């Protein structure tokens, strides 16, 4: 690893040496009251990793139950709660926090700012998200006793009406779902406002929008998208609460209300939401692939345009989740077209990443291993997405295990893989230590193998007619061995994730000292010390191109000559 030394004094830490903070309470207190973007970013990350493990535990139980037909490991009530909580946890308590983890930690450093635009709003947003998660998980013990898992939501993470009406969901399970997510939604809205204001208003001198690192661009677009889509979910959940507690009729089919309108509102949020979740993966790929290929990103303006394009088009595809509800043929056809169109800018991004690697000198360290797997898996997921956009074929595949395979290819194959890439990449910056390379390789290969064991086969069992959300299945349907194989793959992935957790802790305590710039990278965050001082930069940086550190390291051939 080349560690560059730069003639820039931004890395000088001018804070006077502190007395050793021996007291645990003082340290914890400083984290609890912090408004510093770096600490809050790490707290979002810790929250995401924690809930990743919890959601993972839920799905391991699910896979044990499904490994054999007519199994009795979980009762139907518990199974239904577990898959509802698994989905809700992964989307709202892992996916969204990951967006804000990377945004908070990296964006101010990349744009040469001292902090986010609204540091106190930042802290408020984190704690609202966290408390929302606590409220959601309190449902397990809130009433009904532990066996049967209390009142945890059991209506799938979509919470379709009228299953969520008081008549069909007595008790408080649905209320925990709605209220906890309203709380996290407030935190998400605050985070999105903060990100947009930060990127627009806090860039250092010379960093025009077209000079900004792609991660910051993608987080800007991501938060802009969030602004428009998170509140529709809040609106729908408020309507649900009004129905359940004030006798409202928004989704009351007996009073002339419509079950479909819940679906429209939910998916107007739900589809753009999955783009919100995948943008950090795009962002990380756009940072890691150039550095490890030793080349500038190919087609920066096209990448920006594609990202903005994806965000806009994603607002118009939602009813491809509703091809089977009985829309008109014209309605179905429209959403087929819009869905296929959103595949175009997405494909353009893949091509640009490939072109970045082309002609490079690729170093396959751990971040790049994960990013390469991401490229392969994201390609596959995009193609199965095209398959699902073909409405008549969707009439067969909808709500089958094929769909589960498709979206886990994105959520795990793209998002989780690149989250790992991002963690291995920025862990040295945040902690000053490198992560263990050997443990990293074990982590990568086990996770890759387990992932493909589970999710490749899952496509096939969907072709064989296995639907979602079933706690058991008939033994004569031909799904037995496939499910067992899928479950074993899940165990392999779990082992890999445990190795990763161990690596995190080991590296914190014994990792090699990293220095400012262990990867020989080119964006501003690598000009600070590792970890950066509280104030980030001693003097405000001035930049002239997209890769300020490349310009410094290659004064004979700076980027601004070519851009």
């Amino acid at each position, binding site marked *: 690893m080349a560690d560059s030394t730069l003639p820039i004094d931004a890395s000088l830490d001018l804070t006077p040496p502190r007395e050793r903070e021996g007291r645990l309470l003082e340290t914890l207190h400083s984290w609890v009251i912090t408004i510093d973007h770096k600490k809050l970013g790490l707290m979002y990350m810790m929250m995401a990793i924690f809930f990743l493990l919890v959601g993972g535990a839920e799905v391991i139980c699910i896979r044990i139950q499904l490994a054999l037909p007519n199994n009795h490991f979980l009762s139907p009530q518990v199974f239904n709660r577990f898959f509802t909580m698994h989905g809700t946890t992964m989307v709202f308590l892992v996916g969204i926090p990951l967006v804000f983890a990377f945004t908070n930690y990296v964006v101010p450093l990349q744009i040469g700012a001292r902090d986010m635009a609204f540091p106190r709003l930042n802290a408020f947003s984190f704690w609202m998200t966290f408390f929302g998660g606590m409220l959601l998980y309190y449902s397990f013990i809130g009433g009904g006793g532990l066996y049967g898992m209390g009142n945890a939501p059991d*209506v799938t993470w979509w919470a*379709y009406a*009228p299953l969520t009406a008081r008549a*069909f969901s007595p008790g408080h399970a649905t209320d925990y779902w709605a209220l906890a997510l309203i709380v996290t939604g407030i935190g998400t809205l605050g985070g999105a406002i903060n990100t947009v204001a930060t990127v627009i208003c806090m860039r250092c001198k010379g960093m025009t929008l077209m000079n900004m690192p792609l991660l910051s661009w993608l987080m800007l677009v991501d938060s802009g998208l969030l602004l428009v889509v998170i509140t529709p979910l809040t609106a729908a959940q408020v309507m649900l609460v009004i129905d359940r507690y004030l006798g409202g009729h928004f989704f009351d*089919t007996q009073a002339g*209300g*419509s*079950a*479909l309108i819940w679906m429209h509102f939910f998916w107007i949020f739900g589809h753009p939401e999955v783009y919100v979740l995948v943008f950090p993966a795009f962002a990380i790929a756009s940072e890691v692939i150039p550095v490890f*290929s030793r*080349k*500038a990103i*190919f*087609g920066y*303006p*096209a990448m920006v345009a594609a990202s903005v394009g994806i965000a806009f088009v994603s607002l118009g595809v939602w009813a491809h989740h509703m091809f*089977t*509800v009985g829309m008109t*043929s014209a309605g*179905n*056809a429209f959403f*087929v*077209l819009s869905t296929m169109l959103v595949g*175009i800018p997405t494909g*353009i991004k893949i*091509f640009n990443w*490939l072109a970045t*690697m*082309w*002609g*490079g*000198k*690729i170093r396959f360290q751990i971040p790049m291993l994960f990013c*390469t797997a991401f490229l392969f898996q994201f*390609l596959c997921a995009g*193609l*199965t997405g*095209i398959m699902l956009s073909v409405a*008549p*074929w969707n*009439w*067969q*595949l909808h*709500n*089958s295990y094929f769909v589960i395979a498709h979206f886990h290819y994105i959520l795990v194959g793209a998002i989780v893989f690149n989250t790992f890439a991002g963690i291995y990449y920025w862990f040295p910056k945040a902690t000053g230590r490198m992560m263990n390379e050997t443990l990293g390789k074990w982590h990568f290969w086990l996770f890759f193998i387990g992932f493909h064991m589970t999710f490749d086969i899952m496509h*096939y069992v969907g*072709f*064989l*007619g296995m*639907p*979602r*959300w079933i706690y*058991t299945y*008939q033994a004569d*349907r*031909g799904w037995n061995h496939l499910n067992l194989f899928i479950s074993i793959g899940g165990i392999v992935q779990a082992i890999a994730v445990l190795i990763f957790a161990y690596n995190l802790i080991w590296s914190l305590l014994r990792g090699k000292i990293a220095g400012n710039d262990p990867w020989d990278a080119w964006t501003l965050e690598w000009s600070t010390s590792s970890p950066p001082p509280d104030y980030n930069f001693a003097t405000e940086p001035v930049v002239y191109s997209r890769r300020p550190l490349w310009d410094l390291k*290659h004064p004979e051939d700076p*980027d601004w000559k*070519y*851009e």
Partner: protein
Amino acid sequence: MLRQWFRRTHRIALVSAMVAFWVGIAWAEGPQSTPSIYAPASTPAGEIQKLSYFVLEITGAIFFVVAGLLTYVVIRFRARGTDDASEPAQIYGSNQIEIAWTVIPVLIVVVLFLTTARMIFAIQDAPKPKSALSVTVVGHQFWWEYRYPDLGIVAANELHVPLSSTQDEKPTFLKLLSADVDHSFWVPQLAGKIDLIPNHPNELWIDPMHPGLYVGQCAQFCGVQHANMLLRVYVDTPDQFAAWVKNQQQPGLQDASVAAGRRIFETQACMNCHAVRGTAATGRFGPDLTHLMSRDTIASGQVPLTKENLRQWIKSPDSFKPGSLMPAMQLNDGQLDQLTAYLETLK
């Protein structure tokens, strides 16, 4: 040397794998216990299969090109120990390339979209021929109600439809309603699925071309026993269908030897939920039992209909289907025996 191995052996292996895959899920003739979408026995399912092959060819081609490029890049441009420390040539972009790999996907999308749209209209807006049979499907938590308005039949959980052929077209047009929450009717060998949504009637048509039993299940989460809301569609030859219809149209058989059981049925609140045509029992909340014994299964396809299972079901529905909406009626053994005997006469 590696390259040589790669070329020959891998090619053979690849082709064999593909053949095995497609044969494995190839078009089977007739019904099977695995509800595969690739064993169509009816026009909608068959058309979808053909469309899917077309799409797979296109996506397969894209996959091989892009994954091939990725593989090539990973091997060819790997940093090697012998490399010097210089950076490779920095290429910032190319407008021509960007246009090229925008235009080509657009063309692919146009082709895919037009093909897809044509099939959407063909299947969804297919006109209903005069020879079609009309069936109304009502989804309940966790069973299926079938009404044949033109034939005066009300049945449950096992759908009988006539065989259709090119010489004698007799498709079945389903109208789908829901009595409570959202459900979804999915029998993969016959058609794509369609949802049953309260206050929003939907339609589906099938024209099954091979007789036999086709299976499926509810595909939209509807509550605790969603997993056991199974579908059984019996495609009958013309004779079989006529016989079934004739039997279903009869009112419930009155057999004096099971009068005790019938009295239990009528006094123990069974008739609040269940109907037996020709008697005082007219309940609509649970399945119609007029011809219970004409079915192969109970609990919406979950267990075979045998005397023991029937008795156990009445004694404790939760023992088969925990969370089922049928309550245990707290009957003693004698009552259970009499009641079961009565029900066994409802052929």
